[in-house]
């Protein structure tokens, strides 16, 4: 590394330092405390070894919350991924009304969750819009409690998709706008149709955006607690009982040691999953000499 390069690195480091300090101060250090607390009793005084891990691992509520959260992520993230990408391609290719579509899809992001939930309740309550429509169609009375019954998971999924599609759409559109027009022209000259253009031009060029969309979708899927809480309260139908529900209740009962332990377990679990993911990716890279997800 020559001197110029070293100087560049130092400058970059200095620019990044405040952010790094912030992350250390507000994320890494508190997480260090969380790790510490996971080995202590509720008041944080006595060392209890692995006892908290055994308790949390055997806790039925924790298992249910993890299973539901995973189920939710597995369900909504691929749907959101594909659906928002599909819409973004449609919007990018449309000649008219691009702006209108974009605004209408992005609008749910700026509407406060409480307002959305109010509308949702009107739609999904026992004498709400959907039950009335169904009653009208079927000529018999429908008073299904969409939010507190078996349909709760579906309602939450729809809510999440409606709320987050616009956000992912913006990310995809940003990625799409960076694809040079010449690549499309070249593909068309080679006889590529619409599907072939997606396959050979758009998807490879959006590889970086895909990673970003994936990460943000996962992060946002954890935030669905707000909607779940407003829709169905702190003890919703068991199908939408998520990790934040459990953490919230543990905080009320001051079970900080359990919260800390569960957080550590989640981070370790996520770390292992990411490790496996990267190992697979590295394997593919090694095999093909280059990375291709498709």
């Amino acid at each position: 590394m020559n001197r110029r390069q070293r100087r560049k690195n130092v400058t970059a480091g200095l620019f990044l330092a405040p952010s790094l300090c912030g992350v250390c101060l507000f994320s890494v250090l508190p997480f260090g405390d969380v790790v510490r607390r996971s080995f202590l009793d509720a008041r944080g005084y006595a060392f209890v070894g692995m006892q908290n891990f055994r308790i949390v691992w055997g806790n039925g509520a924790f298992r249910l919350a993890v299973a539901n959260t995973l189920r939710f992520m597995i369900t909504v993230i691929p749907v959101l991924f594909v659906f928002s990408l599909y819409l973004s391609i449609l919007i990018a290719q449309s000649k008219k009304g691009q702006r209108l579509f974009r605004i209408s899809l992005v609008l749910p992001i700026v509407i406060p969750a409480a307002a959305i939930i109010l509308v949702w309740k009107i739609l999904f309550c026992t004498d709400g819009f959907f039950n009335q429509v169904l009653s009208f169609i079927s000529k018999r009375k429908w008073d299904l409690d969409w939010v507190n019954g078996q349909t709760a998971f579906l309602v939450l999924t729809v809510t999440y998709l409606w709320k987050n599609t616009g956000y992912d759409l913006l990310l995809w559109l940003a990625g799409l706008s960076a694809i040079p027009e010449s690549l499309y022209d070249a593909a068309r000259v080679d006889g590529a149709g619409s599907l072939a253009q997606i396959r050979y031009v758009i998807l490879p060029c959006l590889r970086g955006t895909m990673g970003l969309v994936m990460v943000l979708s996962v992060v946002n899927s954890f935030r669905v607690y707000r909607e779940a809480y407003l829709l169905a309260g702190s003890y919703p139908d068991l199908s939408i009982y998520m990790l934040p529900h459990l953490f919230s209740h543990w905080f009320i009962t001051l079970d900080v040691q359990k919260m800390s332990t569960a957080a550590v377990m989640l981070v370790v679990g996520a770390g292992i999953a990411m490790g496996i993911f990267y190992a697979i990716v590295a394997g593919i890279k090694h095999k093909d000499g280059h990375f291709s997800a498709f």
Partner: protein
Amino acid sequence: MKKQLQKGKLRKRLAALLVGLSLTAGILGGCQKNQSNPGESQFEQEEGREQAESGTGGSITERAKGRYVEKELPAPEEAKGESFLSLFRGQDGILELYTSIRENPEGKTGARRFLWQGDEWMQDEGWWERVKPEEPPLALRRVFFGLDGKYYFSGMTTDGSYIYHLYQIKEDETGTAIGSSELLGDLFYPKQGNSYGWIPPKTEVGAEGNILLYSTEEAVYYRPDGTKLFAMEKAWGGSSEDSEGYLTDREFVTRTDQGVTRYSLDNGQKIETIFYEGLNQYGEGLHLFDDGTGGIYAVNRNGLAHVNAGGSLWELIIDGSMNTMGMESCFLTEFLAGDNEEYYGVFTKNTGHDFFMVQYIYDPDMEAVPPTAITVYSLKDNSTVRQAAALFQQAYPHVRVEVLNGENQNGDVSEDTIRALNTELLSGKGADVLILDELPFESYQEKEILMDLRQVFEKIQKESPLMEQVIGDFTQEDGAIYAMPARISLPVAIGEHPAIQALSGLDEMAAYGGEHPLFRMDNYENFLRRAACLQYQELFGREEGLTEMKLVKYLETVKALGDKCGAKAVFTQEEMEQYPGISNYIAPFGIKGNATNFDQSFCDCGDEVFDGVESAMIPMAVWRKHPEAVLSTINNIYFPSTLAGVNQATKQPELAQEFVAMLFSLDVQKEYFHDGFPVNIQAQQENCAYDNGDLYIGTGYGEYDISAGWPSLEERQKIYALLKEVSFPVMLDETVMEMIISGSQDYFAGKITSAQAASAIGRQLALYQAEQE
């Protein structure tokens, strides 16, 4: 040359780096909260801060001194046991006190006038006899001194017509009252078609002799000849004589919804409105009076505040939380300023009879702000706690008690409030004393957030014992006491033997087949709550807890009870109009008070929750009417409240424990705030002996009505005897109740079976229990 340049650049960079680092450190330091040394008392911290601020280094700075202290102003001996009428500064600024003689066995009523002679009260003998009108017979209501330098009084006729009269007192050349003449007589007589005339809550006379008559929403200014000049809007006020407002030479000052408003007496136009933050703090009235220079004094539980003429900033002169003003057991009746920057207050006990007077004198040697403070936190406003805080501060003038609660503006409490409290508790902070009602008490106990108070209660038991069974119920197996209820409520039932017997279990309740339903028609949520409370031991009390089988039985019992009386999830407006007394109101513990329903034969069991003798007045009147009925406790249960504990992390354990002791002391326990019976035995005995014979209340709906007086000694003894029977505290877990209520809706609507509902509720309960494992 090049090297020098590079060195210069390097220096500049280093300097920039140092500036950046120092700025970052400064910002972070500025953000950091003042961390106290755990061993350091607040007193020491304060001293340290003062030293630092004064820059005197080692020497301790003098604290700011000077505070108003309260001392009792003895009432005249002759006025003991009489009702308070008026206190004001009359001719020559002399303090004058007027009391009324309550109706005695001979039916004699009257009034007395006392003049303050600097160190004692002197009675103006025969004053009432000289001034009272020949006709009609009158009960004096208020005496006042007009700005025109003349005395006036108002009264109500006692011949049954209940008409207001206003009189000006006539004086001879020596200033002695010799009679009276009526003013504005016609104004107060009933208009055609009305039973009652105008009864102004308050009357004042201006400098020009014009008369200001208050009504509930406005004050109307009249000439003495009865010509109406104008009306001025004021805040809504009832019929109390303490209506909020006063006259000056040129202005009328009163409370409006926006604040304190001045009106011009030239035209009745609004001059200004001054916002006052302490206006509605306790939802009570505001006493206003003139400072003599155009400024305004305002007094309520908050304290005495003052605003200068033309100003808008209120200065709190006397902090109400530190003296009688903040006490819950009495209310402020009159307040006025003396000649030498002293103030006088008259307070009436909650019972409405006994009054006492206090004087506020400035003590220049008293610390302006108490150097020590303890904090008491409860989720909801608690009158007993506020009473204890006021008394504690009187007993410990160097300690300030901050009473905090977690209610929002609507009086609601959210889970976020508990989370905020927990965050404080986790960091070893939080209030010194915790009132644990609706807080996760058992969890706090497990996590050792609460201090073991066994020594405090051992001392209390020796000095002024509490109910043994309550102490026993809240003592852990190892003898530790983490919390103790300062109040308990008593569920009772009135009915014939079979109905009372039917309350002994779920099966018995469901199987009851009397002439009428066991309970009157109500909404299902109340039925669920009531059954959960009454059968708490059966449902929750045993080792296995609330099983699915028990849930099925519980739901079916409630359904059976509901079916017999026509219970519904929600009543429509038409149904509520059709069945007087029926509503969708959700009662605490699900018990609305059914003695009157029993009296009307709507049901065979009139269940009630007594929180004091006053709450038992109507039920006891019903019981009196039904000699065949039994008055009984229900399964020996009681409802504890004002559950007091001390934060283990408190920096002032002695003071916190002293506060808890104060909460259970006779002085606090004997007062009645509609929040439960005392647990202090001596307070129970005193309350039992207390005869509030003047109090009558009535209730009714539709064609039914019943009135009741204060229960007799035998009846009061019966109530307190029932209190001795209770031995099982019921503290419903609201989360569990919510799960049951929402999970059973479909069952009561007939959409699912009891087993299906129980299964769904059971799954939720299992999750709830799993969270706590």
